């Protein structure tokens, strides 16, 4: 808890409210345009910015050659607090998010206690505000204790201070079709969405990795693609039937992408996300038996990776979401079967997306802004994020050095945990500066304010 205290104390050290003039940056990697930020908003763009009367006193930030994007929004983050503070806290997770270019994250409810009441979601929401590095938007559990038997008080969470709109039993599937139907129907009253962890539980008993040639060879129990696809298909049909919004978490197979494309084509209100690791890594990594590659849903085949990239480029998959899942060291330094599934993601997501999508020509920077900021904010109903870079809009922005290359070192990540699957890997693009409502939370690739992370990284 000392981490919280130090961050809480220093959230006021981020700097006085002062206008900022960003010089020479290129919004969406296109034409350069200066940006004047004041009062938490973008005051002026281009010639209007440098010529603005307030520009004279403004702090000038040299963004020459940097790409300017709207602050990233993560629909799928595990902050682990309350209950899992040995793996991550709201403070450390927020810091990782800011360093990764995020200005908002949706916090998954599989905490201890479960975020299945107004009280717990408000606690997480409040912790996020106190830390102040990103907007922490809680996701509420669909069922009590995520046990999949009884609906949680969804409306209470929706009307709480946290104003929850996204509900998920992530980590577990809402497998009971009747319960899923009711959940989809019920959240229509407050324009909510059910974010489904699509995993047929009976088809994945004891599952350890993607079922295929590699699992057969390694003697690890298989997690077949059909266990995801069966639920995706069922839920699309249910969403159609009751006219509700469905969001598919961490879609991982070529077959799921086809199902979502078909559902969208017939008008189903379905959206889907893909994780950075599913865009870059495949099941062959499990051959090391190093559980840093154990994740749920599991890493799939190269064919799936290719299909997921195409689906993201085509808009079938709407968003990239990290599924940032910190785990304490003892939960990864063990046998594969004993290890907990999940990977760090917040500080590497943008670079991985650039590697998988931009350098391959599948997405331009407009596309990156769409899948990492605009679409996730829209899906999650989060006002003030994922907005255009234009005068009058909230000043949630990230400056990216697109030409930089860096090598991932778990020990240098700010998360409390070390479970990155990209250890030692060189990746393109680096976050230089992140602004949350006009205030820098990250400067020159480091946390803004000297004391922000004191006690957090110790």
């Amino acid at each position: 808890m000392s981490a919280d205290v130090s961050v809480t104390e220093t959230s006021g050290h981020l700097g006085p409210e002062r206008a900022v003039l960003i010089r020479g940056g290129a919004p969406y990697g296109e034409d350069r345009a200066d940006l004047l930020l004041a009062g938490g908003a973008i005051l002026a763009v281009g010639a209007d910015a440098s010529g603005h009367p307030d520009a004279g006193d403004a702090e000038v930030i040299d963004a020459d050659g940097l790409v300017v994007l709207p602050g990233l929004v993560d629909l799928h983050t595990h902050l682990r607090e309350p209950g899992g503070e040995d793996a991550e806290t709201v403070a450390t997770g927020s810091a990782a998010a800011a360093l990764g270019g995020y200005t908002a994250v949706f916090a998954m409810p599989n905490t201890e206690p479960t975020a299945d009441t107004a009280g717990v979601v408000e606690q997480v929401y409040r912790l996020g505000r106190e830390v102040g590095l990103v907007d922490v938007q809680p996701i509420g559990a669909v069922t009590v204790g995520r046990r999949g038997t009884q609906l949680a008080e969804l409306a209470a969470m929706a009307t709480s201070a946290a104003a929850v709109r996204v509900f998920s039993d992530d980590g577990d599937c809402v497998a009971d079709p009747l319960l899923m139907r009711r959940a989809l129907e019920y959240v229509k009253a407050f324009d909510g969405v059910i974010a489904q962890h699509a995993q047929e539980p009976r088809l994945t008993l004891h599952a350890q990795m993607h079922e295929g040639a590699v699992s057969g060879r390694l003697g690890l129990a298989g997690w077949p693609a059909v266990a995801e696809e069966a639920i995706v298909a069922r839920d699309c049909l249910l969403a159609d039937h009751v006219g509700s919004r469905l969001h598919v978490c961490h879609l991982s197979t070529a077959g799921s992408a086809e199902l979502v494309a078909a559902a969208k084509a017939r008008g189903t209100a379905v959206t889907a996300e893909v994780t950075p690791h599913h865009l870059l890594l495949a099941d062959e990594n499990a051959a090391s038996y190093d559980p840093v590659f154990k994740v749920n849903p599991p890493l799939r085949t190269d064919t799936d990776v290719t299909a997921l990239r195409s689906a993201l480029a085509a808009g079938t998959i709407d968003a990239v979401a990290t599924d940032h899942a910190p785990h304490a060291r003892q939960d990864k330094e063990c046998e594969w079967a004993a290890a907990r599934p999940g990977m760090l993601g917040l500080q590497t997501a943008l670079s991985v997306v650039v590697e998988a999508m931009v350098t391959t020509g599948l997405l331009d920077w407009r596309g990156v802004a769409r899948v990492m900021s605009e679409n996730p904010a829209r899906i999650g109903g989060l006002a003030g994020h994922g907005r255009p870079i234009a005068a009058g809009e909230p000043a949630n922005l990230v400056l990216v050095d697109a030409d930089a290359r860096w090598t991932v070192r778990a020990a240098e990540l700010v998360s409390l945990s070390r479970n990155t699957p990209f250890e030692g890997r060189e990746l393109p693009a680096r976050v230089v500066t992140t602004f949350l409502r006009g205030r820098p939370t990250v400067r020159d690739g480091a946390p803004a304010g000297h004391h922000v992370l004191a006690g957090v990284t110790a």
Partner: protein
Amino acid sequence: MTTTTVSTMATDFQTQAARLPRHLLSAADLDRNAAIEVLDTAERLDQAIAGREVRKLPTLRGRTVVNLFFEDSTRTRISFEVAAKRLSADVINFSAKGSSVSKGESLKDTALTLQAMGADAVVCRHSASGAPHRLAGWVSGSVVNAGDGTHEHPTQALLDAFTLRRHLIGPDRSAGAGLDGRHVVIVGDVLHSRVARSNVLLLSTLGASVTLVAPPTLLPVGVEAWPCQVSYDLDSALAGADAVMMLRVQRERMDGAFFPTVREYTRGYGLDLRRRALIAPDGIVMHPGPMNRGVEIAPAVADGDGSVITEQVANGVTVRMAVLYLLLSGGAGVAGDGRVGQVEQGGAA
């Protein structure tokens, strides 16, 4: 070679043993030459010890072998223990029953403890696939996989290959020989069998053709990529086979909807006298044990002509002596080419 003394054997092996990796984690770690080297070494050790009053060689005196068994397996543990003792190694039996999680201490802490005690070799049996791979990244000694989950059991495959070679080639002519052109049928729960995985890899490396026979529910997805044939029909697969290896059917599979009833399983995939008669006239019957008599194998077959099941147990000691010998005294155990070890250590850094 039959009269070679132990001291000259050691010199021979030191030049040849560089082919062995630092650890024996998978049968795939052995190429054809390395596999034959292990089998030839086993033959020579067997002959060397047979002529002795005290059935012991001084080769591994002063070296420590730890038997680290996280899963009950009296047979395999004793086999390794006898093998190490016949080579005069100090043997420590570290029985950590149940998983590391339920025991409280993590596999890594156990590994660091063994490391601190200076184990030269760790023989690891674990219910989790890949546990010996993990261990190999945390200890500096050699790790021998004595069966990991549903993955592999490479010394079982070596003893099976040794037994096959003795019977199908003959002990006098087997030195340097593989199993080229021989046909081995492996029957039963391939999906969960570490014995089957290791045998498919090793026997195919040695040139044998392998056919797996099982109901489709007990074959892993992706088996078509393995270096073997697959069949659902035992009768046709057995025709003219040089050997048939029956796998144990685990009690829990019977309740897991993998097949309707034990009776139906036995009818389709059990080895009775009628089926026994389908293999080649001098063909042999094998089983890694322990057997479910009357389920996968009829007692009359298990105890009948051509059954080499108890001989497999005896050969297990011999082959494990060869493995420990080559890993620990061949120089490979200290430095070696580290093929597997380096990968693991890099991953654990």
